[in-house]
C-alpha cells in the first residue's frame, strides 16, 4: 500500500483556559489523495475549522497545544520549522475562507493582494505578478480582469470576491486546498457557480481538497469522502455516497432528518436533534452525543454514558467507520429513519 498524499493521524488541538482544557479537536485521523475531495461536516464548535487551521500551521505561536501527525507528501507539517511551514503556506497548501469580504484587506486592491500571494513564493517583478493575477482572475471567471484587478474588495460583489479568493489560493498551484465554508456567505445561485468553479479547477489543478461545511447538500455534491465531526472527534467517516445513503451514526441521522428539502414529499417531517451541542470544556462522559441521542435506549446497559465508543468499521463495509455502540444501525436506519425523511424512496421499494 502506498502512502497517501495527505495523512492526518491522531490530530489534537487543545486550548488551555483558566477553566480547563478546551479539546477543540481530539484525535482526528483521515487520509486524502490528490484530485480527491474530503468533506468535513459538523456544526459550530465541532472542531472542523480548528483542524484545518492546524494543517496550515496557523496555531503556531498561539497558546494552542497541537499534537499528532500531519503528513503531507511524506513531510510532517507539525515537525518542520516555522520558515519551512511559511514556505508551504500559499504554495503547497492554500486556503479559502468563509467570508470573502473580511478575508480580504479592505485597504489594498484585489489585484495587489493576489499578486502578493504570487510574489511571496516567486521572485518576479510587480508587473509580472500583476499580469499573473489578471490571468488568474480571468481563469476564475471575473469579467474584464484587466480592469477589475485594480478594484478594491468592497467594489466586488460577494460572488466575485469569493472568486478572487479562489484565484489567490490557486495562483501558486497548490497541491492541497482547504475550503472553509466557501459558500456559506453566498446566495444559492452564486453558491452553485462557486461550487462548479471549484470542481472545474480541481480537475485542472489535480489538487486535493478539504471541504469544510455544515451543509450536507454541498458535501453530497462535492465530496468523495465524508467525515462527520461532533465535539472534536470524527463520529462517522467513509465514502461520501455510502455515508449519505447508509449512515450508521445517530448524529448523522439527526443531521439528515433535521434539514428540510426542496424536493420530494411535503409530508416529510422535520425531526430536530434535541438539546444543544456539548461544552468542549466538560464534554459528557462516554459518547459525546449521548445526551442528545434518541437511540441510546437500544444499547444495553449504560455503555453510551460511560464508555467512549471507538471509531470502528460499521456493519456494511470495512472502510465505513463509525463511532457508536449501536449493534444494528443499518436496520434502525432502514426501518425508523428512512421512512421519516424519504417516504417516497421507501414506497418505491
Amino acid at each position: 500500500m502506498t502512502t497517501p498524499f495527505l495523512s492526518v493521524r491522531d490530530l489534537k488541538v487543545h486550548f488551555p483556559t483558566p477553566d480547563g482544557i478546551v479539546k477543540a479537536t481530539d484525535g482526528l485521523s483521515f487520509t486524502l489523495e490528490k484530485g480527491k475531495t474530503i468533506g468535513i461536516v459538523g456544526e459550530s464548535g465541532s472542531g472542523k475549522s480548528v483542524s484545518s487551521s492546524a494543517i496550515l500551521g496557523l496555531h503556531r505561536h498561539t497558546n494552542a497545544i497541537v499534537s499528532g501527525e500531519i503528513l503531507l507528501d511524506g513531510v510532517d507539517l507539525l515537525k518542520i520549522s516555522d520558515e519551512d511551514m511559511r514556505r508551504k503556506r500559499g504554495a503547497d497548501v492554500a486556503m479559502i475562507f468563509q467570508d470573502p469580504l473580511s478575508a480580504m484587506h479592505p485597504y489594498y486592491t484585489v489585484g495587489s493582494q493576489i499578486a502578493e500571494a504570487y510574489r511571496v513564493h516567486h521572485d518576479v517583478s510587480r508587473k509580472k505578478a500583476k499580469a499573473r493575477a489578471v490571468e488568474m482572475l480571468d481563469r476564475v471567471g471575473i469579467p474584464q480582469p484587466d480592469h477589475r484587478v485594480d478594484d478594491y474588495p468592497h467594489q466586488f460583489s460577494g460572488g466575485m470576491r469569493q472568486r478572487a479568493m479562489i484565484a489567490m489560493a490557486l495562483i501558486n498551484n497548490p497541491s492541497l486546498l482547504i475550503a472553509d465554508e466557501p459558500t456559506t456567505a453566498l446566495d444559492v445561485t452564486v453558491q452553485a457557480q462557486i461550487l462548479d468553479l471549484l470542481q472545474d479547477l480541481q480537475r485542472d489543478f489535480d489538487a486535493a481538497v478539504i471541504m469544510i461545511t455544515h451543509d450536507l447538500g454541498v458535501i453530497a455534491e462535492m465530496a468523495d469522502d465524508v467525515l462527520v465531526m461532533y465535539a472534536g472527534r470524527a463520529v462517522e467517516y467513509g465514502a461520501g455516497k455510502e455515508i449519505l445513503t447508509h449512515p450508521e451514526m445517530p448524529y448523522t441521522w439527526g443531521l439528515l432528518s433535521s434539514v428540510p428539502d426542496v424536493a420530494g414529499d411535503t409530508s416529510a417531517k422535520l425531526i430536530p436533534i434535541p438539546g444543544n451541542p456539548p461544552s468542549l470544556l466538560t464534554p459528557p462522559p462516554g459518547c459525546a452525543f449521548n445526551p442528545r441521542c434518541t437511540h441510546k435506549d437500544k444499547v444495553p446497559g449504560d455503555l453510551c454514558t460511560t464508555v467512549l465508543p471507538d471509531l470502528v468499521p460499521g456493519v456494511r463495509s470495512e472502510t465505513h467507520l463509525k463511532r457508536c455502540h449501536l449493534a444494528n444501525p443499518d436496520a434502525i436506519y432502514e426501518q425508523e429513519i428512512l421512512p421519516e425523511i424519504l417516504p417516497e424512496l421507501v414506497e418505491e421499494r
Partner: protein
Amino acid sequence: MRRAIIGIILLLALSLLTFVLFFSSGVDVTRFACGKNCTPEKRATTEKALGYDKPTVVQWTDFLQGVVVGRDYPDDPELQRESPEIVTHCPAPCFGFSQVNAKTVNSLIAEAAPVSISLAMVAVFLWVLFGVLFGLIAAVRKGTWIDRGIVGATLVVYAFPTFFIGIFLLKYVAIKWQLLPFPQYVTIADGGVGEWFVNLLLPATTLALFYLAGYVRITRAFVLESLSEDYIRTATAKGLAPRKVLFKHALRAALTPLVTMIGLDLASLLGGAIITETVFSYHGLGALALRANVSYDLPVLIGLLLLAGAFVILANIVVDVLYAYIDPRVRLD
C-alpha cells in the same frame, strides 16, 4: 467645501462668544489695560482707545471689519486726531491691537508661532514614532512582561504632571548631567537644523511624554484588533513572513484611528504647550496665551482663540481628506 463653510460659521460664533464672555465676566477689564498709575482720565482714554465703551456687538462687528479690510488703532477718530504719532495701521486681515504689548495681534502671533510650530513638530514626531513603536511591540508581545512593562511605564509617565517632567528634565538632563545644552529657542536660519532640533529636544520630549501613553495604548489596541481579523489569517495563509503581515497588513489597518488621534491632538496642543513653554521659558503661543489671559488682553485672546479654532477645524478637514486616502472605502466614487 461644505465643511469649510461650516468652519467659518463656527469661527464667527466662537469670536462672538468670546466677546460676550469677556465682558460678562464681571472683572473691570479696562482697569487691567490701564496700567499701574491709573487716573480716571487715563482710564477713560484707555477705554476709548480699546473701544470697550461701545456695545459688545458693535465691538464684534468692528473686529470683523478689521479682519476683512484692516483697521487703524486707536479706532476712535478723536484720539487719532489728538495724537497721530501713536496711530498704527493694521492691514487686513487684522486681528486686533494689543494695548498691553503696544503691538498688533498679528505681529505678536507671527513672533510666537514659529517657536510653537517647531515645538509641536518635534513633539509630534517623537510621540508618534515612539508611541507607535512601543504600541506595536506591546501588541506583538501581548501578555508578556514586555507588554506589561511598556504599558505600565507609559502610564506612570502619563500620571506625572507636565511641569514636573519639564523641570525634572531641565534639572537633570540639561543642568546636572549636561547631556543636552540648556534649551533656548534657536531658529533654523540662525543655527541650522541640528542646533534647532537639539534645543527643542527637551521641551518637545516633555510635551510628547504627555501624549505618548495614549498612542501606545491606541496602537496596541488597534494592532491587536486587526491581528484578529480574517484578512490577517489570509495574509499568513499566503505564506507572508510574520514581519510583513504585521507591518503591511496589521499596522496599515490601525492607521485610520491613529491619524484621527494625531489630528485632534495637534489641534489641542496649545493647552499642553502653555505649561511646557512656561517651564522652558520659550516665547511661543502658549506663553503668549498665558500672558494675555492674566492681563485681560482681549485682542490677543481673540486672535489666539480664532487661531486655535481655525486649527481644530482645519485639522478635522485634513483628517477627513487623509481618511479617504488611507481607506479606499471612504473615497467617493
